[in-house]
């Protein structure tokens, strides 16, 4: 019912010589009731894509379908969607109740019904004591909840969220994230959530669309995106601290990078120019000589509380290792021995950045 279909959607600003293509033929299928997060760095086109689904931007090419209807030529109000903005966009001179009721009033919904819906939304979002207040009398978190309440009362087919947590402080962000999750659990409305924060993406998404420079890099569940990134961009974008990426030549069971020869726990899928990826949390300090190890000279150490980050250079690239803070930690200048298990090695083609599947292991250590 609330399924969304994006078919080769394009966005071009300007025309003729000054035409600027910001979205290049994006396609995706979103199932009814799914919570999909569109994540990517600033300028990648995620907000533009969301606004095209909303109807606030013209669709230059391709088609967008909501609930089975092609909506390219429909006004936002006709698409049965509701949107939550980054800056809340609450009408400042209207009370919270009026803000939430506005869309319904315009549609001539009877007052009794409006009251019921607003009260229900206010109960879910704990806004009941604030219904009479004006937005300027509320805190940022409360305003954001009112914005969500405004979207909920419309009972639309799709919720669109445009970076709604970006204006909140860190603690409030975490709290509101949980509220959004709870909300989705209760309402199960199809939701499209745009953010540049990969933590928000990973925690909220049932599936993620990772975008970069107007193209989709990967669509998948947080698990898939984390464990099997499709490109070096996704590998480096998802996960904090980001995955270590080392470029070099693979031959047989070793990898030559930055003047170093790195022995591998499992051979690379093919020989040639490849990019090796290993997440900082999958690298272990090793004392054993039986498995292939790498030497790293520690250049910096960061203490984060529960964990420590060790920085050095490996294979000519910045290399980060995440260690549990309870373990003995190396000091700057120490040379440490590192080990990475075969299943934690990711390989990417150096030219296309695309993932190259590892050869199946003779003995598979299940992740």
């Amino acid at each position, binding site marked *: 019912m609330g399924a969304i279909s994006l078919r080769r959607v394009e966005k071009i600003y300007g025309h003729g010589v000054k035409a600027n293509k910001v979205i290049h033929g994006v396609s995706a299928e979103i199932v009814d009731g799914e919570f999909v997060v569109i994540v990517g760095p600033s300028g990648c086109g995620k907000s533009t894509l969301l606004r095209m689904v909303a*109807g606030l931007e013209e669709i230059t090419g391709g088609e967008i379908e909501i609930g089975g209807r092609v909506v390219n030529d429909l006004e936002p*109000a006709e698409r049965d969607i509701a949107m939550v903005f980054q800056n809340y*966009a*609450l*009408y400042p*001179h209207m009370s919270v109740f009026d803000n939430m009721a*506005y869309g319904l009033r315009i549609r001539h919904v009877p007052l009794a019904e409006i009251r019921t819906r607003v009260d229900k939304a206010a109960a879910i979002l704990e806004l009941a004591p604030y219904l009479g207040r004006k937005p300027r009398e509320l805190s940022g978190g409360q305003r954001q909840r009112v914005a969500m309440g*405004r979207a909920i009362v419309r009972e639309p087919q799709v919720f669109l969220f445009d970076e709604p947590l970006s204006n909140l402080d860190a603690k409030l962000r975490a709290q509101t994230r949980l509220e959004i999750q709870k909300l989705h659990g209760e309402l199960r409305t199809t939701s499209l959530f745009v953010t540049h924060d990969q933590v928000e993406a990973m925690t909220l998404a049932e599936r993620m669309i990772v975008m970069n420079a107007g193209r989709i890099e990967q669509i998948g569940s947080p698990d898939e995106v984390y464990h099997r990134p499709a490109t070096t961009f996704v590998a480096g974008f998802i996960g904090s601290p980001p995955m270590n990426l080392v470029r070099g030549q693979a031959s047989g069971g070793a990898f030559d990078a930055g003047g170093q020869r790195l022995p591998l726990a499992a051979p690379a899928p093919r020989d040639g120019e490849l990019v090796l990826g290993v997440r900082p949390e999958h690298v272990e300090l090793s004392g054993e000589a039986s498995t292939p190890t790498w030497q790293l000279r520690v250049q910096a150490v960061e203490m984060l509380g529960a964990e420590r980050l060790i920085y050095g250079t490996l294979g000519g690239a910045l290399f980060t290792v995440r260690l549990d803070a309870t373990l003995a930690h190396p000091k700057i200048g120490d040379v440490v021995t590192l080990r990475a298990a075969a299943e934690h090695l990711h390989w990417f083609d150096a030219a296309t950045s695309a993932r190259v599947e590892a050869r199946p292991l003779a003995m598979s250590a299940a992740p």
Partner: protein
Amino acid sequence: MIERRPYLRVVRHAVLVVAIAAILFPVYVAFVASTLSFDQVLHVPMQLWPGNHLIENYTAVMTHGSEKGSSAPVGRMMLNSLIVALVIAIGKIAISIISAFAIVYFRFPLRKTCFWLIFITLMLPVEVRILPTYQVAANLKLIDTYAGLTLPLIASATATFLFRQFFLTIPDEYAEAARIDGAGPLRFFKDVVLPLSRTNIAALFVIMFIFGWNQYLWPLLVTTQESMYTTVIGIKRMIPGGDAAAEWHLVMATAMLAMLPPALVVLLMQKWFVKGLVETEK
């Protein structure tokens, strides 16, 4: 700033008192003159404390003007001035706010040209176009009518410009949220833009009202009957040319009456803008 030198406080207050006295003194003299009889007002030097002809002078002037100069009742003239000022103020605001809304929120060909054309006409004072305007008004039979007094003055580039600048500061998100809520452009205008513009409207109303009230040249040209004169014209006409002595006490009474409505408007509207300024939020 905390002023630590007490004598400077005294100086500051002294300067303020002197300035206020300088501004208020002529008004006070006019008031006193309006309460005197004909002989008292012509006496040199004129007394500086109020006399006891206040009621007599004001009623005389309201009902039948002066005898030596114009004899139009000032009551009627004040009504004319009020109508002109109100129609001009409301008309200017209504027309400009809609134009500014169109210029800011719609995209149409020649949009920028329209705006600049309007803006350029700001630079033309009424006097520059007075002859052609008079001719058009005469041809349309607008002489001696309220329409003739108000229509040629009813468009305002200043107000359009001010509203446009204000609308540009309204975040786009309100328009987008309203669009998603299903509000058409006029609905959005009525429900969101207008309430947000209250302070601007109040401020402009005061300015336009005073402008309309004080208009002299155009009403002078476009009216020929005494019953259509405005108060400011009335004041001038009460002063006869030549050697005849003007009835200054009546002239001053008319002047005091002429000052009242604008002062009232400012006092009333003041409450509104302070309220609006205090209420700004984000």
